[in-house]
């Protein structure tokens, strides 16, 4: 039995929820708290092909701009259009409605070595 979805975490404070071979990516609650109130999210275009480590999204707070990186190779399938008018969703629901983009996964082995929720939580201490 494989679970319906698995969520991974990166050292760059992103979460990746994998469901039916599609990854939904966002920043963690810890990350949004560190960044402060977000005022603009620069989202990629659906269809863009990306490589692991690409700076794909820029989240802008009042004070600074920060990159969000692609956690795996693949192709952008959709972006969270709601963030265009309401970037604060990332602050209020970073690991839910504040998701950034979804993408296909070219090579599932790139997920190996990412953290699970418990390991990520410990890494914050």
């Amino acid at each position, binding site marked *: 039995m494989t679970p319906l979805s698995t969520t991974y975490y990166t050292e760059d404070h992103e979460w990746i929820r994998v469901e039916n071979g599609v990854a939904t990516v966002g920043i963690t609650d810890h990350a949004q708290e560190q960044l402060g109130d977000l005022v603009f999210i620069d989202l990629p275009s659906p269809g863009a092909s990306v490589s692991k480590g690409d700076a794909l999204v820029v989240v802008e707070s009042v*004070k600074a701009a920060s990159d969000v990186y692609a956690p795996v190779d693949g192709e952008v399938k959709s972006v969270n259009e709601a963030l265009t008018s309401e970037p604060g969703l990332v602050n209020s629901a970073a690991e839910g409605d504040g998701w950034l983009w979804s993408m296909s996964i070219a090579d599932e082995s790139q997920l190996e070595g990412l953290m699970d929720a418990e390991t990520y939580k410990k890494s914050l201490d």
Partner: protein
Amino acid sequence: MTESESLKQLPLQALHERAGAKFAPFAGWSMPVSYPLGVLKEHLHTREHAGLFDISHMRLIEVAGPDAADLVARLCPVEVASQSLGACKYTFLLNDNAGIIDDLIVTRLADDRFMIVANAGRAETDEAWIRTVAAEHDVSIEALDRVFLALQGPYAAAVMAETGFDVSDMRFMSGGEPRPGWFMTRSGYTGEDGFEIAMPLDRAETFAETLAADERVSWIGLAARDSLRLEAGLCLYGNDLDETTDPVSAGLTWAIPKTLRAGGSYVGASRLAEIFASGPDEKRVGLQAEGRQPVRAGAPLTVSDGKPAGRVTSGGFGPSVEHPVAMGYVRADLAQTGTVLSADVRGRPIAMHVTKLPFITKRSQKG
């Protein structure tokens, strides 16, 4: 982590920790950058109620003695002879090229005594410069050890009155010494009415707690301080001003008395007179990006034909105006309001309109 270990801590660090502050390095200090309220609400709270800032990183330098007035007149383009007791002047230390060593507030406390408020990042440079220029003057120059707070916003005066300071007759850009060891001006860096209050270290915690306990008052961090001053069109030294920019290019001619524009006894006077006569090559302007994406310091600006037009020196998001706000330097012939330029943000062009400063209607009255 050696960098953070060498950072200076504010005297009220523990109080800020208790208030839930997040800290970040600024000008060699570990500064509260935001509090649990968050930068957006901190910004809005200051405009609507009253914001409390710890600005103890700024340096108070007292200049006193028989030659104090002469020294100030040599250091800064101010008309010291007509500066009345208690009057605060926004002015500059200039080098021989009329480049800005620092921007300052100079308050006259007595015929022979002045208080200079210097920027944190420039404090040591300023003090060394003042001592150099003062070499043949009969003055004492003392950097004071104080906690320095700013209370800004429409309720600032009412809150001050409740803490025992009668500020009803105090005009904006005036100041004095309300108690021994204290120094207070009605001034600020937000575009709002407000006060900057320096006090002895042993009085600071009680006073800060008293202010913070007022329900109209909230602690405000450095991030909101920056967005507040940017909306108000105020310069940040190191971003919008440096030793290669002069007051005319910076659009700060209002701070230079008319009688001192064609020359004077202050350092930099002859070069500044030349710039007044010929006009500056570049001018500081307000810039408003189309759309919602902030354009930040360092972004290059071009004209539609691709030729360089200038650069953004401060930029971010304005929580009160609810759009991106920026300022920068552009070629003088492009400085007219309405000119459209293009900023390069991560390789993508963003249209920016030259606009009047400030972005908000200032509520700080001129003295």
